[in-house]
């Protein structure tokens, strides 16, 4: 699953730590999501999207490999 969290963070000049604190997770979890190493739960995806004032679909995008 692709996501544009890094881009949105850069746009708002927000650090991973700041985003993690707002979303109620640890910094490594945000790093793992950005790198595509961890897929967040629906609740966490919604929280992150709301922090950026976006919808989940605007922030996260399915890849072909997700259907396999």
């Amino acid at each position, binding site marked *: 699953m692709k996501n544009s969290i890094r881009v949105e963070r850069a746009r708002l000049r927000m650090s991973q730590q700041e985003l993690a604190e707002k979303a109620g997770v*640890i910094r*490594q*979890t945000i790093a*793992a999501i950005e790198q595509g*190493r961890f897929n967040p739960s629906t609740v966490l995806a919604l929280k992150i999207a709301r922090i950026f004032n976006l919808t989940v679909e605007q922030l996260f995008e399915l890849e072909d490999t997700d259907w396999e």
Partner: protein
Amino acid sequence: MKKLTLLSHGWQKTGLVLLAFCVLLFIVCFKAIVHDLILSSSYYGYDSFGRGWAAEALVLCFSASVVLLALSRERAEDERVSAIRHQALIRTVILYVAIVFLSALSNLLIYPLFSQEQAMQIVTVRRLLTCVPAFILYYVLIFKVSLWSDNKRLGDEE
């Protein structure tokens, strides 16, 4: 994601203190413990009946320490850490089954090479490696290593 029900992080310290006490006890009372847990094995394996206080204390403290270490949360616990816990549990089951299989196989292979008494002691060592506290210890080790390596791979903030 629903949070796992776990003890507070402070219990990890209690678990570590108990584990340190076990190591100390094992070193200080090495002879008595080895005798009670392994050398006095009968055909029916090790028996708690008639075991000395050192072996008894070691079994109790070790069991309590691994349970506390396994069931207490990390300093910062979220859904990624919970996912690592689940993955560690699956890996532990695979490792445990492999240990049970290999130890049973090795018993069959080496059993004829030893006397009855020595063979029973080997069986007892196998039982110690496959007992429930040992399973929990494998889980704790796999989980801690997985979490440490995952955090290290994610590195510092970019």
